[in-house]
């Protein structure tokens, strides 16, 4: 099996606080890998280290064969993320936001045009293409945020709490988009929502206070904990393991 990400003893300390504790993890290529954990578990810090936003205190990770410590520039060209907070340029239209990000990743004018059209259609954003991003609802903004990450053709997409704060319908709508991408690229998803991880993930990791407590498929985690539902398995892992 080939891996998109190989994390080797990755560690992050903020002063005396250990946010991520010598993490060891391998993420298979093309999979949707969910990282679960309560607040302060180290999910976002892990993603931030893997995308070059935070420098690790120790350890390393190979992202598509490139070290995040020694070859970060190469890593940045191959990955993209949709941050926890909606990250769009508020006064630009939906189309302009997409063109802007494609331009930042060095696409030429022709490719920007072609990719923008493709992504607008793929995400059903055509109808709001000329609306300013700040006028969109939370669900549409989050959709645009993910579309902006995808327009750069990343081989790995990091989705940090992609449906946080969205209503049920908007969440389900976004799940559909994520499901469509499965198998095409590697996705790393952090979430608080058990049903989200259950519905979307190929593999799930559970982090508690910076430590990796369990990794496996949904069935493996249920078997490991002797539970029927992911939520029960999660609680058991967090409280007892």
């Amino acid at each position: 099996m080939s891996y998109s990400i190989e994390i080797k003893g990755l560690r992050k300390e903020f002063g005396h606080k250990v946010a991520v504790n010598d993490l060891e993890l391998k993420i298979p290529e093309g999979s949707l890998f969910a990282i679960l954990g309560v607040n302060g578990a180290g999910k976002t810090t892990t993603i931030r280290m893997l995308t070059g936003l935070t420098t690790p205190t120790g350890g390393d990770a190979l992202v598509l064969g490139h070290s995040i410590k020694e070859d970060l520039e190469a890593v940045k060209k191959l990955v993209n993320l949709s941050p926890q907070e909606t990250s769009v340029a508020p006064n630009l239209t939906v189309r302009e936001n997409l063109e802007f990000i494609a331009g930042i990743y060095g696409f030429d004018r022709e490719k920007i045009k072609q990719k923008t059209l493709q992504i607008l259609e793929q995400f059903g954003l055509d109808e709001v293409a000329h609306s300013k991003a700040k006028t969109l609802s939370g669900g549409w903004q989050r959709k645009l945020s993910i579309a902006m990450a995808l327009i750069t053709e990343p081989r790995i997409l990091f989705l940090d709490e992609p449906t946080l704060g969205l209503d049920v319908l908007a969440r389900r709508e976004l799940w559909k988009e994520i499901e469509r991408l499965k198998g095409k690229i590697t996705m790393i998803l952090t979430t608080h929502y058990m049903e989200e991880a259950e519905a979307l993930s190929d593999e799930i990791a559970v982090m508690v206070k910076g430590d990796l407590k369990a990794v496996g498929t949904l069935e493996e985690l249920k078997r490991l904990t002797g539970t029927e539902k992911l939520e029960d398995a999660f609680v058991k892992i967090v409280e007892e393991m």
Partner: protein
Amino acid sequence: MKSFVFAKRTLKEILRDPLSYIFCLGFPLVMLIIMSVVDRSIPAQANMTVFHIENLGPGIAYFGLTFVMLFSSIQVSKDRSTALLLRLYASPMKPADYMIGYTLPVCILALVQMGICFVAAFVIGLCTGYTFPIGAILLSVLALLPSIFLFTGLGILFGSAVNEKAAPGLCSIIITATGMIGGIWMDIDGLGGVIQKVANALPFYHGVTLAKSPFRENPKDTLVHLTWTIVCAVVVYILAAIIFRNKMKKDIR
């Protein structure tokens, strides 16, 4: 290339904010008109030349740059408060791309503002019996170029150092200082004393005097004013780049 893409985005963000037009273009024009009316009300015996259109035109062109600083600081601090910069920090953009991307649109805005200011001053001059020499206007614009970088640098500096609520407050101190001791609203040379010493120590008086020089018969110490303005602009801009870079690291920590 990335810096130009970022610059285009920044320009669009600024131009789509109606306040840009009010402060960057409208306000200097209104000041020009009001102060010209004030000038007409001052008796000739008072020998007060500071509000004469040949002084007011370049003075307000300089003063307008303080509003450009205000917008640059608001843009940088606003960007820092949103997750958009987080996304960009994870992209292949380098710190220099951000600096160029913030500087270019502000320079364009400043040049447009100066153009409008001098055209308005030219028209007011014609109405009041003074014809601005075109060559002198061009020289004055050239003389104002280092000050564009000074105020852009100050905008980026404040926008990087503090949040979007505090940045306009810091800018208002500079706006007041520029107006008071820059020699736009009062004759600093005539005042002398501590005020002149303070004015000499800061770049604003030098920048304003430099902008007025092409309209004077015997401009004095032009090289001193130019050197001081350029030195301050370079120092402030480098400082802004350092603080932006440090804050960028801190923001994503």
